[in-house]
């Protein structure tokens, strides 16, 4: 028999082991004064953090994750009204004066932010900044503090710490800066570190490094960590317990494994079902959560998730469910849902609750064998050089930088090629070169069989009909001053579609992307991010193109919204027989959507093949490292994985390593090769070849390839 019992207290099950919590937050609420009325960003949340544990907080942007921890840290602006209590090591934090809280903050309570550049002072060297916090809180002498700072920089993995401690924050890369932030956070041996999206702005490979550093920091200091993130993969691998936040409330909390395996609240279930997974095949059905999170100004009376919840019943709209224990699961698993006992009793999973969209059948054309389908986009030995200049006023050319250094691939009809790689590897330059339809520095680009270098202006204009683009940022890609109808009409006007047909087509397009025809006379500002991305897709489809270039089309969207757009792209491809060039750094999304994958590193393609080959049999050491850096949203799998950590950052394209461009970070090179064999990597740049791979269509640029399964 399953019955809800009132939770004994905060979402930390204090009876479980009797350990005194390090931080106890009780009934914390935060209200901001704002133009549109008071905004209650956090609405009565309670939780405990025990010494040495990692508490993960997940939720979409605006759910109150940051505000709730900033409130604890005393970092909110004066417009915020905070109620409730937050006891840290027996001491009430709320209501402390500025001076008192700063004494605690930075010593026993430390914070790591998403953007370390804004948290570091630009005019002091990082060594001095770390030494300064040590001196303030520990009263060490100047040179002792400086020595300690260097030790800390070494601990967080900054190479040449003594020398680098004299550098200024802007001289570090994003990942290195985040290491400095962590060094600063652990400088005074804190008992609790709050990390607010510490890896969100970073590449997966760097994210893996930073998580490793945080883990080290935790082992060295024994500190507890509150890890705030929207990435369910990060939580799965890193946290002991987790809380899911929605609309300023905790809606589910418990031990990580339990929450992932038996989510008892529809929002959590939807969230887990909406993320594409690296370990699932291409046919994984995603369950998007419809709608968007509610506005915090006018929250509905009942359950805040009710407007989007497929399990909604009448009482959901009348009373907001409290966060109660789910008795059938282990102690401390709490969910805020009127129906969580039912979910637990019937063992419902996300596919029972949400409508799963099956990946639609491929169009007839795409079912032909690859060789029989026509090539729609062909890139051969593409090189793009940027001049490097020196001097301010009189610019002089001082050499050149190859952002793309000989890239070849082709896309056939009805096919999706995923182009992946770290930021800065040349993905965007490649697609911009294609979209310009101009003659590249060297190499050729052919769209639908026509070479761009040999095109007349007229042909180029005509071919633009067939080659369209969807951008990453749905905020920036629509002209804010035009109504949606004008935005969608623009390509058709440009290419001479008659007015009468345009209006009909606009309505069709809106319907096609899941919006309503009435939306045509609204302005972009009236739409949410996901809806804007749909408008961007509709515009790209207006001229019935054959090839769509998608530049990170979902990476600016919240997880629950992403799934809807991915499903849309899947469906459009099947219905309209489109071919996609899909650029992304999120390999899970690529796994879901791409037929073939090309992995780029420093301006070159290092591995290319079908998605199955590349993901299941990655052969290039870089592909292996990239794949192993991606956290799986599955605590059991994630914790048992072996991780290949890449060392350091992407080298500068202005000065690439000799021979194999990857050798400075290659673990094969570093650990498995003797000096003789290394010679070859040092001297000779490997060509893409299919000689040593399993499949025929699978090519790798490495002298010593060795397939390995890393997922």
């Amino acid at each position: 028999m399953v019955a809800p019992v009132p939770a004994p207290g905060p979402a930390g099950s204090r009876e479980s082991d009797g350990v005194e919590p390090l931080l106890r937050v009780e009934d914390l609420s935060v209200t901001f004064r704002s133009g549109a009325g008071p905004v209650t960003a956090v609405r009565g949340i309670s939780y405990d953090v025990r010494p040495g544990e990692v508490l993960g907080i997940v939720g979409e942007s605006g759910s109150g994750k940051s505000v709730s921890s900033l409130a604890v840290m005393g970092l909110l602006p004066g417009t915020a009204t905070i109620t409730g209590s937050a006891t840290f090591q027996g001491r009430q934090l709320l209501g402390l004066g500025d001076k008192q809280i700063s004494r605690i903050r930075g010593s026993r309570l430390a914070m790591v932010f998403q953007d370390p550049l804004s948290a570091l002072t630009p005019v002091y060297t990082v060594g001095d900044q770390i030494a300064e916090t040590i001196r303030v809180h520990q009263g060490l002498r100047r040179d002792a503090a400086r020595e300690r700072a260097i030790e800390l920089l070494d601990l967080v993995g900054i190479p040449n710490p003594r020398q680098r401690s004299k550098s200024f924050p802007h001289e570090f890369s994003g990942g290195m800066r985040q290491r400095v932030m962590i060094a600063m956070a652990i400088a005074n041996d804190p008992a609790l570190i709050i990390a607010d999206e510490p890896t969100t702005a970073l590449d997966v490979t760097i994210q893996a490094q930073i998580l490793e550093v945080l883990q080290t920091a935790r082992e060295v200091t024994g500190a507890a960590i509150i890890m705030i993130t929207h990435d369910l993969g990060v939580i799965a691998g890193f946290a002991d317990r987790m809380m899911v936040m929605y609309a300023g409330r905790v809606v589910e909390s418990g031990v990580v494994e339990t929450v992932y395996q038996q989510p008892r609240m529809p929002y959590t279930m939807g969230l887990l079902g909406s993320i594409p997974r690296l370990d699932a095949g291409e046919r994984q059905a995603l369950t998007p959560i419809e709608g968007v999170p509610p506005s915090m100004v006018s929250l509905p009376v009942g359950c805040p998730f009710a407007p989007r919840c497929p399990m909604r019943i009448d009482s959901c709209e009348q009373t907001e469910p409290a966060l109660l224990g789910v008795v059938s699961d282990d102690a401390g698993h709490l969910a805020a849902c009127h129906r969580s006992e039912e979910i637990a009793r019937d063992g419902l999973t996300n596919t029972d609750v949400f409508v799963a969209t099956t990946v639609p059948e491929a169009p007839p054309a795409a079912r032909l064998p690859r060789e029989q389908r026509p090539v729609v986009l062909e890139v051969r030995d593409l090189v793009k050089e940027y001049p490097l200049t020196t001097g301010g006023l009189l610019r002089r050319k001082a050499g050149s930088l190859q952002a793309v250094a000989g890239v070849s691939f082709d896309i056939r009809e009805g096919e999706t090629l995923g182009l992946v790689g770290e930021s800065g590897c040349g993905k965007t330059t490649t697609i911009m070169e294609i979209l310009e339809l101009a003659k590249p520095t060297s190499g050729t680009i052919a769209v639908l069989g026509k070479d761009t270098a040999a095109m007349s202006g007229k042909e180029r204009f005509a071919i633009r009909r067939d080659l369209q683009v969807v951008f990453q940022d749905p905020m920036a890609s629509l002209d804010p001053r035009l109504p949606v109808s004008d935005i969608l009409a623009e390509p058709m006007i440009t290419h001479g579609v008659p007015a009468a047909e345009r209006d009909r087509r606009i309505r069709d397009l809106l319907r096609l992307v899941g919006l309503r025809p009435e939306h045509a006379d609204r302005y972009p500002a009236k739409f949410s991010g996901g809806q804007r991305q749909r408008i961007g897709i509709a515009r790209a489809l207006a001229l019935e193109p054959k090839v769509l270039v998608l530049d990170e089309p979902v990476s600016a969207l919240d997880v629950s919204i992403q799934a809807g757009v991915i499903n849309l792209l899947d469906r459009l491809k099947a219905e309209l027989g489109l071919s996609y060039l899909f650029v992304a750094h999120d390999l899970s999304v690529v796994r879901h959507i791409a037929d073939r994958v090309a992995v780029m590193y420093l301006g070159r393609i290092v591995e290319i093949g079908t998605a199955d080959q590349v993901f299941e049999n990655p052969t290039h050491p870089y592909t292996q490292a990239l794949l192993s850096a991606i956290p799986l949203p599955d605590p059991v799998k994630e914790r048992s994985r072996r991780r290949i950590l890449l060392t350091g950052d992407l080298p500068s394209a202005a000065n690439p390593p000799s021979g194999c461009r990857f050798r400075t970070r290659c673990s094969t090179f570093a650990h498995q090769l003797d000096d003789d064999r290394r010679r070859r990597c040092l001297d000779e740049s490997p060509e893409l070849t299919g000689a040593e791979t399993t499949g025929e269509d699978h090519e790798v640029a490495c002298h010593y390839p060795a397939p390995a399964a890393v997922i």
Partner: protein
Amino acid sequence: MTVVTDTVTDTDVVSRSVSRNRLVLRRFLSQRLAVAGVVVVLLLIALAYLGPIFYPWKYDQLDFQAFQSPPSPAHWFGTYQTGGDVFARTLRGLQKSLVIGLLGALFSTALAAAAGAFAGYFRGATDTVVRVVTDLMLVLPGFLIIAIFSSALRDGSWLLFIVLLAGFQWMITARVVRGLTQSLREREFVQAARFMGVPGWKIILRHILPNMASLLIIDATVGVSSIILAEVGLSFFGFGVQPPDVSLGTLIADGAGAALTNWWQFDFVAGVLVLLVLAVNLVGDGLRDALDPNSEIEGAK
């Protein structure tokens, strides 16, 4: 279609906020001085064009019974030495100055927008040419050149004069427009238009200039008063509007000598000029604050 359409529920995320234009209007109306400025400008325009209909004296009419007479019920602002009516001429001058100010500002802003946007968008040779021309225009002594030109064109039309005035006003704004264009050019909606094959000039008209409308509106408003003042300056030295036509500038030049003895021949015209320029500037300031989302205006919510 068998696939489930993942329709998005209608979310009025921002529908609480009124449309931008209404918001700007509301923010503008909440500033008392700016509203007063608008009222004064409108009254002056009305006065300039409706006044002559009801006033018994025309600007080119002479009253041989009242030379040099101080303000009286017959001649509200008094008369000149020749018996010309000061009020009638002031209205006439106001008309001309308004036309010069409005047209000149419009022209100079348009020029600035075109030059800056083309330079910023097309870069390369276009940019170099525009930059050289702007720099050259900035170092040339505008006043002197207009003076020389206008005496050469003594009986040329006053339209040409406006072109000259505007021709020395646009450079700074053009530089600002160029900078803004360069950053807008990299925005994704501009790129999207480019990749769909929309020609450059159309992109400038449809996407770039509308997105700096607030800058241009403010520039034009502020330009009105500076063109009016420039005209006054030139006319004062006899280079601007030529007799028998009058403008506030020529009237001030005529009245200046008598400012101490026959005050009404100077003070009224000067007063109207100050009122006009002040009012226009108040409108400009008000617009700037209303269009700038960061300015703190009471009642903007």
